[in-house]
């Protein structure tokens, strides 16, 4: 190859084109994750990454029941949020796939727009709604429905679940919609021609074929919510501390970075297990054509 073409053709071209992507994926994504794992096996002795390895952090996580409790609470909260989001999103995706007609583009845009607006502001809006002297209380009192404002809405796991479910509501629609849309109409017609009732068509044809979308939607809601920091910090109070808050505390007040890294590794393992279980579920129930 002539040197003039070194960067415009063949391997030279590929090397140049690969550079930004390789730098970012290996140099940032992969390297940063390796650092987290490495730091998780260190102790908080001020030597950062240079020093002997130890399992101490993981032993603490496994033996101190606080961490199991917070992890289970995070799983429980994000599990409920995922369930609520997927269940409420399914009919919307159904409408978009089968009935929306000309309005499809507009509705799709309307349900995805909140995705691109500030998450912090969406959570803040719920604080405005649920606060003691907030919108809900003041509206109910001034309408004469309640005698006095209630503190029951804020600082509990329910507030966190409602806010997260609302904030992540549209995330599940798109994957389910895509899955429903790709189901061949001939399959649905054939099964009803052969005498299947509408319930049977749904249970035996449509639901199994849309399962990859349902599980995909579940994943995009589950992952960010299990590690969420903002919502429990702003609305949850001490009774709904989640694993993301514990991790943040290690890098803030508690100032024990290695332990925070170990908590992050434990969280990633839990997410990995959930992904594997979802894959298994997909293989088992998400029968593909």
């Amino acid at each position, binding site marked *: 190859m002539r040197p003039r073409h070194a960067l415009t053709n063949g391997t030279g071209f590929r090397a140049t084109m690969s550079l930004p992507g390789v730098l970012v994926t290996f140099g940032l994504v*992969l390297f940063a994750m390796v*650092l987290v794992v490495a730091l998780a096996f260190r102790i908080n002795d001020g030597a950062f990454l240079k020093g002997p390895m130890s399992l101490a952090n993981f032993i603490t996580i496994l033996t101190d029941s606080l961490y199991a409790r917070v992890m289970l609470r995070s799983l429980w909260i994000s599990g409920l949020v995922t369930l609520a989001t997927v269940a409420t999103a399914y009919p919307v995706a159904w409408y978009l796939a089968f009935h929306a007609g000309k309005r499809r583009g507009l509705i799709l845009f309307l349900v995805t727009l909140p995705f691109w*607006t*500030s998450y912090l502001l969406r959570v803040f809006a719920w604080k405005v709604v649920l606060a003691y002297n907030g919108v809900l*209380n003041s509206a109910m009192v001034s309408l004469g429905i309640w005698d006095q404002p209630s503190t029951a809405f804020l600082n509990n796991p329910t507030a966190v679940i409602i806010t997260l479910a609302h904030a992540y509501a549209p995330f599940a629609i798109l994957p389910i919609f895509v899955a429903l849309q790709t189901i061949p109409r001939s399959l649905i017609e054939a099964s009803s021609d052969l005498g299947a009732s509408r319930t049977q068509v749904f249970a035996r044809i449509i639901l199994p074929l849309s399962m990859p979308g349902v599980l995909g939607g579940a994943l995009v809601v589950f992952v960010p919510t299990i590690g969420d920091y903002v919502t429990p910090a702003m609305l949850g109070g001490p009774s709904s501390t989640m694993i993301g808050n514990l991790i*943040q505390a290690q890098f803030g007040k508690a100032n024990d970075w290695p332990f925070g890294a170990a908590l992050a590794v434990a969280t990633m393992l839990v997410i990995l297990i959930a992904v594997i279980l979802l894959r298994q579920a997909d293989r088992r129930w998400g029968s593909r054509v």
Partner: protein
Amino acid sequence: MKSSRILPAYVGIYIVFLYLPVALIPLFSFNDAIQAAFPLKGVTLSWYRTLLETPAIGQALINSLIIATAAAAISTLCATTISYLDVFPRPVLSRLVSGLARMPILIPGVIVGIALLILVNLAGLGPSRPAIVMGHVLVCLPAAVTVIRARFVAIPQSLAEAASDLGASDWTVFRRAILPLAGSAIASAFTLAFLTSFDEFIVAYFLSGTEPTLPLYIWSQLRFPKSLPVVMALGTLILLASVILATLAEVLRRRSRI
């Protein structure tokens, strides 16, 4: 399948519920009271006036704009090259890189934040604007790759092959044959990345030095009940900008389909 009336009604209620809490922010930003509560007290623009008179907000806005522009430019460049190599020549490494680039969507923001914090400390950089840019590149990359890759996949391979057969170098094929066809999708990915970075809080929370971005400024003000109306005025402007940019991205994306 016959469409009943229940389903459209449900979709309508769903959309109203989706927007209702957020709509309170603009509503109360014009309300003449510190407390965000009913009944409304009267219309005022004083919170917007305070907004303009607070230099810290202007500074945070400038920081956010710089960071979002840099993060969007870098992630769009990376997403374009990654997607091109993944779709057209398809070597194994490129497919691996493309997969890795979309992986951060499976990592909670808190963990992306601490991972980058460890990295920038190791590199001696520490929390700073460049650190936030790095973090935001990771956050923006999955969506940018997804948007641009989808566009490249829709372009017939034969086009690249024909250009190549007619003597175009690899670079010419990329720049003259494929890139012009993906222009709108790339612009759409840039806009969405810009928006993502502009609104992003948690990664920036770990990586900011002395100069806060707008979401960090908002977070710092949430503790003070007196500054909440100004936060609502600021939030209204941010929401407005987000809606305009997201609409622009959607228009660009639709155009790229033709």
